[in-house]
């Protein structure tokens, strides 16, 4: 285990990190996902050394670094904004950490040449940072961090200031870092598709507490909590009462609608459905309902329509535009109804 956070507690004004425990392995890409002000950046800055926890320990390779200043941690932090060191040009920015560490000039030049080649920014070395695009700035930030050979790379929402066109190439670049540089990356974001693309493991944070850690498939397909499900794109989460059946369970929603699920569960639950799993249909089998289109939004891959079924709204992604007011029939496959016990209930999944 390269990085260990053990029971970290920290108070900043009204905000608290509560008993945060996380482990990060060598070459792992850990993404901490959470809503705005959930504490994800605070965790990152605590690892970087900006804040000192009131209790708990931070270990790197088993050594306690909790009280070390940032410059002695061998952890590089890339902030959300492009932190250019004015009035240095790109070369000066990348060279900064090496100069601060007293690396001789010939070695600095060699290291810079290596990293700029890796990141494809040789042509930017004499430019001033202010003239760079968002994607170029992010590459320079990464070069500046990686040239110092950190043990861990921390990324604070590195894609938030980048245009969608450039995002793809930066995602590719980021994904290659753990293996290429033999370091783990800890990356925080509130974008679930970004997390799904990049992470080898995901930690979900809410109100300063890590509520769930798992691999991307588990987090996105089988979230254990209502909050995680909301965060990772389950648009429809309807409360109901589940009763066991031979093939799974039936969830009776508050409007009387009955949804069948393959999951075996009893008690008060949330029935969660991803919009891409809902299909327009003409049939009349299980989980097939008629409803009225109440809103339509254009999306990159089609249209997101909101369908009202007996005063409960479902969201579906469809390929063609449907006018508001249209009556449609939808089918929700049984294996696409994911069920989470409601927090106040004693409902417990029996299997699956």
């Amino acid at each position, binding site marked *: 285990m390269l990085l260990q956070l053990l029971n970290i507690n920290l108070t900043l004004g009204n905000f608290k990190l509560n008993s945060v425990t996380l482990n990060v392995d060598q070459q792992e890409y850990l993404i901490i996902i959470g809503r705005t002000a959930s504490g994800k950046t605070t965790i990152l800055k605590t690892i970087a050394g900006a804040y000192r926890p009131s209790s708990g320990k931070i270990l790197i390779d088993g050594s306690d670094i909790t009280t070390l200043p940032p410059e002695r941690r061998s952890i*590089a932090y890339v902030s959300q904004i492009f932190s250019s060191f004015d009035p240095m040009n790109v070369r000066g920015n990348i060279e900064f950490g090496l100069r601060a560490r007293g690396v001789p000039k010939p070695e600095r030049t060699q290291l810079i040449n290596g990293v700029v080649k890796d990141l494809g920014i040789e042509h930017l070395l004499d430019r001033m940072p202010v003239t760079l695009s968002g994607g170029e700035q992010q590459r320079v930030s990464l070069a500046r961090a990686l040239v110092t050979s950190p043990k861990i790379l921390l990324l604070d929402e590195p894609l938030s200031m980048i245009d969608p066109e450039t995002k793809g190439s930066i995602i590719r670049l980021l994904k290659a870092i753990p293996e290429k540089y033999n370091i783990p990356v800890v990356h925080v974001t509130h974008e679930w598709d970004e997390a799904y693309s990049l992470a080898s493991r995901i930690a979900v944070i809410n109100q300063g507490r890590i509520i769930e850690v798992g691999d991307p498939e588990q987090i996105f397909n089988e979230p254990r909590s209502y909050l995680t499900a909301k965060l990772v794109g389950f648009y429809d989460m309807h409360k109901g009462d589940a009763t066991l059946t031979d093939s799974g369970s039936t969830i009776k929603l508050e409007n009387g609608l009955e949804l069948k699920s393959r999951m075996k569960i009893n008690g008060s639950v949330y029935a969660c459905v991803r919009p891409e799993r809902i299909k327009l249909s003409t049939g009349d089998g299980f989980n097939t309902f008629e409803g009225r289109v109440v809103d339509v939004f254009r999306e990159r891959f089609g249209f997101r329509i909101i369908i009202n079924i007996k005063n409960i709204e479902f969201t579906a992604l469809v390929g063609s535009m449907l006018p508001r007011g249209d009556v449609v029939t939808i089918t929700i496959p049984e294996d696409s109804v994911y069920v989470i016990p409601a927090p106040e209930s004693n409902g417990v999944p029996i299997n699956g």
Partner: protein
Amino acid sequence: MLVGTPFAYLLARSEFRFKEVIEAIIDIPIMVPHVVVGIMIVLAFSSQYGLGPILQGLGINMIDTLIGAIVTVTYLSATYSIRVTETSIKTINPDIELTARTLGSSPAFTFIHVIVPRIWKSIANGALLTWARAVAEVGALLVVAYYVYFNGNDVYPASIYIYEGFQALGLAGVVKYSAALLVIVLVIFIVYRFILKRL
């Protein structure tokens, strides 16, 4: 600049107990007449009161001396330098410093190579205002260092000299000195700002 800049950084970036008290002490020169500040300095440093006897034991006399005049106008004018620089530092996102520190830069290296290049114009402006405020000082100097014995001569601060001249000779007697001081200060301000703008 040497005292005010680190102090401004401390105020801009740190939270500590009694920070409000320190900030209020810095703001005293803009709260009360400077004569009152002069009286406080005399009470604190004259040979009979406060730290005076200790300083005298070390051979330091604060009253009617160059060092007394410098300490007085430094305290009275530093408010401007500190506040201008502090405001400028507060505009710099602390993430920039954290980024630099995690790259291996010590606090001093970060301050010199990351912060100062961003705030040096504010430091320079604060220094100009501080100097101008020091030149204009009358009230506290009347109490602390009415004249200064320096290099075998009794030297009067320009402001005191003009005030004294006005008291003794009336308006006509001090017009030329007032005009000269105004022109000198104005020229220095214009040239200084002209140079700053082009750097």
